[in-house]
């Protein structure tokens, strides 16, 4: 044992002599390049958890998606050019939609191959979507494919999978028919559930398909070559990739790192090239050092408070109004979210656009306007609250009003946030607010059972269309259990979703959001911002690092190269 300990110490010393010339613990052989060029084209980064599976039909977590977008190619790629979205060819070289807007045709490139040399065909796209729709598969990620004709009937087993609205017209032509027209469908096909799958591979590996690096074939810029569960993954450049000339990196190593302190230590010691920070302290620490480059990605995830409109107290619109307007949103961002998010004044986050135009810009700062209206009428939020209380026959003393605010977390952050809310509402409304802390699962159950009055939550948009966020409040979706029903709102959302004319669509969405905001169903607070630092030798071909990255781009590592490591 003692000897072994010595040996360990020795390996430590040897490792030191290696790291001294490499920076980060890299393999000392097989690197090919090296010397003053700063080593090869590789990136060391991390994932915060183990990906669940690489099975396109069974995955639904963000960690597998991070890997999948690099090792798979879909019909299109959404990338950023000069600060704007650009839909680029993926496996599809071109595409068109019929005049009605419900039949999309994709023309696959004939040079598209899998890493085993097999061609990519339209039939593989059809098979993949059918497999996900098949109830026997148990796919947890049907969100994006439900607009496809007959998806619902197929997923309940009423119709056979062949009835799904996807057809291979020939080897390289794919036709997708939708239940109703949908202008945003093209961008939604960027989702991983649209990736092709090979029937022969699925059948060969059975249950084990997608569970190991070797049990899968890849058609993306990279190939998953190593997957040491719960520990590390490696993706290497795919020689069979149709656009391989535009892929610079030889490989990317992922380490699975969960703990924030450990992540910081790994970044500081040069073990990883990227870090996403979550505190003002860290943000300032890395900003102060020029060897780090900051990239902000913002605009798609929002934090908001929402009301149970069937609760005896919260059913009153004036009381909801008082709670929505009794918060200072700038102050909330400064103190509640320590300046790490951006203030938001409407339900739709800034990233969501219609035909390239941000809806937030068109709709304006709704919440600000509503506040100004209130001030112009010479009333305060407290006056509105008392009005509401009188309407309900609850007297006129806010300090006696019994309101509980539910938070979906029990850690320090939530406790501090809860105290902040109590203080805010004590000052602005004179209310003695109670706070209920519970873990997400319990919180979620309480929402479903209508067992709450006010809740707080974050929600991320799946794809770039305001409908994606507006649909949460549809009467028959009721996804945040606010139990709010409004026929006019439903009609406007659905009209916008199926409208092909961009201007009309925008107007429908803006009108719908207005109804939502003026009925005070939810009060948006902030847009989340992901603050990511990278070492200065990491470059992106199309983005000037340090600028904001658009929220819905998924270029993966395809456009990244290393210089001056």
């Amino acid at each position: 044992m003692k000897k072994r300990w010595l040996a360990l110490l020795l390996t430590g010393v040897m490792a030191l002599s290696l790291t001294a010339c490499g920076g980060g613990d890299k393999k000392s052989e097989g690197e090919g390049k090296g010397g003053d060029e700063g080593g090869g084209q590789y990136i060391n980064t991390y994932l915060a958890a183990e990906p669940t599976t690489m099975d396109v039909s069974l995955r639904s977590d963000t960690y597998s998606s991070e890997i999948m977008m690099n090792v798979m190619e879909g019909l299109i790629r959404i990338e950023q050019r000069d600060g704007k979205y650009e839909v680029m060819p993926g496996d599809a070289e071109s595409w068109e939609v019929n005049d009605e807007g419900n039949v999309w045709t994709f023309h696959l490139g004939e040079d598209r191959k899998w890493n085993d040399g097999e061609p990519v065909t339209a039939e593989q796209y059809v098979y993949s979507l059918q497999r996900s729709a098949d109830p026997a598969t148990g796919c947890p990620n049907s969100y994006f494919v439900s607009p496809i004709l007959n998806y619902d009937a197929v997923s309940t087993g009423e119709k056979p999978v062949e009835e799904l609205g996807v057809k291979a017209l020939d080897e390289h032509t794919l036709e997708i028919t939708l239940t109703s027209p949908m202008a945003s469908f093209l961008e939604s096909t960027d989702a991983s559930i649209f990736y092709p799958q090979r029937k022969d591979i699925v059948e060969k590996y059975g249950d084990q398909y997608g569970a190991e690096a070797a049990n899968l074939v890849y058609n993306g810029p990279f190939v998953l070559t190593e997957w040491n569960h719960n520990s590390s993954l490696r993706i290497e450049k795919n020689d069979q990739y149709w656009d391989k000339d535009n892929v610079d990196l030889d490989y990317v190593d992922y380490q699975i790192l969960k703990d924030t302190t450990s992540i910081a230590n790994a970044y500081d010691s040069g073990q990883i090239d990227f870090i996403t920070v979550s505190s003002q302290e860290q943000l300032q620490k890395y900003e102060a050092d020029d060897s780090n480059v900051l990239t902000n990605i913002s605009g798609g995830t929002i934090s908001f408070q929402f009301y149970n409109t069937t609760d005896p107290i919260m059913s009153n619109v004036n009381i909801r109004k008082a709670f929505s307007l009794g918060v200072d949103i700038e102050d909330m961002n400064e103190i509640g979210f320590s300046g790490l998010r951006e203030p938001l004044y409407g339900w739709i986050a800034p990233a969501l656009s219609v035909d390239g135009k941000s809806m937030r810009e068109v709709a304006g700062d709704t919440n600000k306007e509503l506040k100004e209206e209130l001030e112009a009428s010479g009333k305060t939020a407290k006056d509105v609250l008392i009005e509401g209380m009188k309407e309900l026959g609850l007297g006129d003393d806010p300090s006696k009003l019994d309101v509980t605010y539910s938070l979906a977390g029990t850690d320090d952050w939530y406790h501090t946030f809860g105290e902040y809310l109590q203080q805010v509402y004590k000052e602005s409304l004179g209310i003695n607010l109670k706070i209920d802390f519970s873990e997400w699962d319990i919180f979620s159950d309480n929402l479903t059972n209508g067992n709450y009055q006010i809740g707080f939550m974050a929600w991320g948009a799946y794809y770039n269309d305001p409908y994606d966020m507006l649909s949460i409040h549809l009467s028959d979706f009721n996804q945040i259990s606010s139990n709010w029903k409004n026929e006019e709102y439903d009609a406007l959302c659905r009209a916008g979703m199926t409208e092909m004319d961009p201007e009309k669509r925008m107007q429908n969405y803006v009108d719908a959001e207005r109804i939502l905001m003026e009925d005070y169903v939810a009060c948006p607070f902030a847009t989340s911002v992901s603050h990511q630092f990278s070492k200065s030798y990491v470059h992106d071909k199309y983005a000037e690092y340090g600028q904001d990255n658009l929220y819905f781009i998924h270029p993966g590592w395809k456009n990244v190269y290393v210089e001056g490591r």
Partner: protein
Amino acid sequence: MVKYVLKRIGYMIVTLFAVATITFFLMRSIPGDPLASMARTLPEQTKANFYAKYGLDQPLFNQYLKYMKGLVTLDLGESILYAGRSVSGEIARTSPISGAVGGTALVIGTLIGVCLGIVAALNKNRWPDYIVMFIAILGATIPVFVLASLMQYIFAVKLGVTPASGWGKPEHMILPVIVMSFSSVATYARYIKSSMLDTLNQDYVLTARAKGLSEKKVIFRHVLRNSLLPAVTIFSSSVVGVFTGAFVTERMFSIPGIGFYYITSINNHDYTMVMGTTVFYAVLFIVMQFVVDFVYMVIDPRIRVASDK
């Protein structure tokens, strides 16, 4: 003796059955399910298809029977969270990793701890004793995550001699072993010190000294042997701890061990994985208890006499 062993095995089976049953129903009484984190975005049909696939749509008692049947036939099922990975396969893959790190740390920690404990006892109320007790108090009070972070900062960030975290090379073991052995050092130092002081005051030590035995002989032949008895008890539970993995250490150093896995499974309601791991832990613990009793019989004649009756 044979009767005693058979009786013990009978008890083990009953205990295991109880552990498996309680875990099953406790796990199911926690609000939420494997889809809980996505529950708000999923259509009903999608959820129904998913539950049907894993048999979660059956009545709870039927699921319990199915599970118990699997247990008897040593089939622990498949992970719900990680499609296509068998529970027994995952345990077989992760527990040796925990064992390697934890075992190394335990052996090193115990040896150092026992030595320090002896030094402290023999130098009671003199400076070596104070130093050892100071180390012991540190080891018992500093939270593991603080110690781990400190080690990473010193050895990886400042000195650059070891990787900060990771797994796969021998040098990845260094920091986690240091961190994990620290608590063993603290525990054993205190235990051995107190039991040794206890033994030193026994009559037979006085007798041995009166017989004119050298101090070395007194300590090694009489005192030490008797002082190590209580250490056997805690050592057994430490050994189980080795395989169950140290969750915090594994998380901080991203070691793909079983402790890390277990917590992830609980948080994600991965029923099969949690059940399998719990049963695995229980088996280890029960068997270890049995081994300890056996070892006691060997080293302590008084117990042997009692159990033969």
